[in-house]
């Protein structure tokens, strides 16, 4: 079979299976088998690739970060972080909206998951905001949009996914550090927007907390707030690889939840383990089958074909990056994040690298794009969770989210065209270490 025919077979098989609602991981696996059968290559390679990819030590970081996030969020962390955020920004006009954004910033630095963020912060803050006179749609929208920070701010297990999908060639340490400035920019954009909306609609100011009370709240939030540091510092300083940083975080979260907060018992841990296994199970098989699929695409020179097609439209970096952003945003609206990361990375990375785009910066662009996709209909898991928690329809939430989409797109454009926003911190740490 010729290469173009093989390519048509592999992509056709994958797309048809997807449209028929076959789970993405299995569609990738079947398309890989189709390639190996049709090309006469040994199909044993599919099994070998899946097992080898799963045995990769770096992959271990994903279930451990998920486990850490589950332990922390089950241990009543969300309420404490909301209280700390309230001390920091609650006193301004529209204070509760600001608290929502800041609490997501803190929580995202622990869970690394926007869905977990919305599911944990939403039930605490949305009813409070509505009771205080905030529009329900706005309350849900700010909760959903602010959870995007969790995807970019370290420790993001999606960043690890990206590194693995790139064949381990992109440093997780650099990706984690690169997420700080864009993540904080998203937070700043959302807070600015919230301040404008709050001032126009006359949303109330929050209460001012006395300094004694503020100290007490801050002290109780310390074990939660130091978690991101416990994860990122050993990694950034090169003391431990990603999976060891992750296990340190797990041990710390057990200490914090069991001995400091005393909020989790043995039965809770069993529940937490089951939940973390479920979430990990979805991701790990996806990484395995995507590795086999990626091998098929590499044999067929798909990245080169896509690069040629894009440069035929324009050879200008700006235009190609804009086209890619539009494409990823559109795909993010109909497909889930983890699946897109593992499918798109091996295809797009070889396209953007010759244009001078740093793989670390591209990782952040991809994550931010797909993070926005999680908040958009028709397929946005964060949007669905936010709507369920806030008890409003997807249409209502989507309408309320419109200004937030604009704010996030502005940040996306900045991150796309100003590489320093992503690369400044990793470069700084690298130069400091050398």
């Amino acid at each position, binding site marked *: 079979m010729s290469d173009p025919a093989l390519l048509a077979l592999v992509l056709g098989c994958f797309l048809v*299976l*997807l*449209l*028929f*609602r*076959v*789970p*993405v*991981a*299995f*569609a990738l*696996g*079947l398309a890989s*088998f189709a390639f190996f059968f049709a090309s006469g290559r040994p*199909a*044993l390679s*599919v*099994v070998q690739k*899946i*097992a080898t990819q*799963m*045995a990769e*030590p770096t*992959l*271990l970081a994903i*279930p*451990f970060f998920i*486990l850490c996030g589950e332990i922390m969020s089950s241990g009543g962390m969300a309420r404490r972080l909301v209280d700390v955020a309230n001390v920091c920004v609650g006193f301004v006009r529209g204070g509760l909206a600001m608290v929502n954004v800041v609490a997501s910033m803190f929580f995202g630095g622990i869970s690394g998951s*926007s*869905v*977990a963020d919305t599911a944990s912060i939403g039930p605490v803050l949305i009813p409070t905001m509505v009771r205080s006179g905030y529009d329900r749609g706005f309350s849900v929208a700010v909760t959903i949009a602010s959870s995007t920070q969790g995807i970019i701010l370290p420790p993001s297990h999606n960043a690890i996914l990206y590194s693995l999908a790139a064949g381990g060639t992109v440093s997780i340490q650099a990706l984690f550090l690169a997420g700080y400035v864009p993540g904080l920019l998203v937070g700043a954009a959302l807070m600015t927007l919230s301040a404008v909306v709050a001032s126009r609609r006359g949303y109330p100011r929050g209460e001012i907390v006395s300094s004694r009370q503020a100290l007490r709240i801050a002290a109780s939030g310390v074990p939660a707030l130091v978690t991101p540091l416990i994860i990122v510092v050993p990694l950034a300083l090169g003391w*431990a690889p990603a*999976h*060891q940083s*992750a*296990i*340190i975080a*797990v041990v710390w979260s057990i200490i914090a939840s069991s001995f400091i907060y005393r909020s989790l018992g043995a039965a809770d841990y*069993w529940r937490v383990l*089951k939940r973390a*296994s*479920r979430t*990990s*199970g*979805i991701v*790990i*098989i996806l990484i*395995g089958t995507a590795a086999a699929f990626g091998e098929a695409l590499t044999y067929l020179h798909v990245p080169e074909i896509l690069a040629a097609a894009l440069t035929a439209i324009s050879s200008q970096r700006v235009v190609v990056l804009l086209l890619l952003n539009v494409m990823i945003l559109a795909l993010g609206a*109909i*497909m*889930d*994040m*983890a699946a897109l990361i593992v499918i798109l990375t091996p295809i797009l990375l070889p396209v953007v690298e010759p244009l001078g785009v740093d793989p670390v910066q591209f990782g952040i662009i991809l994550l931010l794009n797909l*993070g926005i996709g*999680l908040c958009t209909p*028709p*397929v946005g*898991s964060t949007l*669905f*969770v936010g709507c369920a928690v806030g008890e409003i329809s997807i249409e209502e939430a989507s309408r309320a989210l419109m200004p937030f989409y604009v704010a996030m797109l502005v940040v996306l454009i900045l991150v796309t065209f100003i590489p320093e926003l992503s690369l400044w911190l990793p470069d700084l740490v690298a130069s400091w270490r050398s």
Partner: protein
Amino acid sequence: MPRALGAILEAATAILLALLAVNATFELVAWMLWQRSFAALDEIQALLMVWFGMLSASYCLARGLHLAVDVVASRLAPRMRRIVATVPPLAVAVFGGLLSIYGWRLVGILDNTLPGTGWSAALQYQPVAVAGLLIAGIGLWQLHARTVETGSHSGPDVA
């Protein structure tokens, strides 16, 4: 899927995750104390990880948690939707069958041993073969029950 199998898989994956955490903690402590890593611990970790990955994938399949795109299928007419609903379990069963067949073939071929534990290198592929069988079984059961348990909306918090 019989509830008992679901409960067994759920418990097995939770235990495997706990074992992975214990093994990794052990490795970390060993590295801190003696500034060296142990090949045996690395090999056990890799083995546990493949078992964990494959069994948790089977469990998620049984629970209908895997990510799927339902933008098109959900817009079909009810009659068409019922016909289309047979495709995912059938495709899953075929994939599971292939994994199992080629997994066992790989196990049969490999005769070298791992340096740290001295165990057979084929052990790493056994989970794929076993889980392939489970996946095929679950797919066939779902086909029989004519249920489509996949769904991107069912709340996997992977993002």
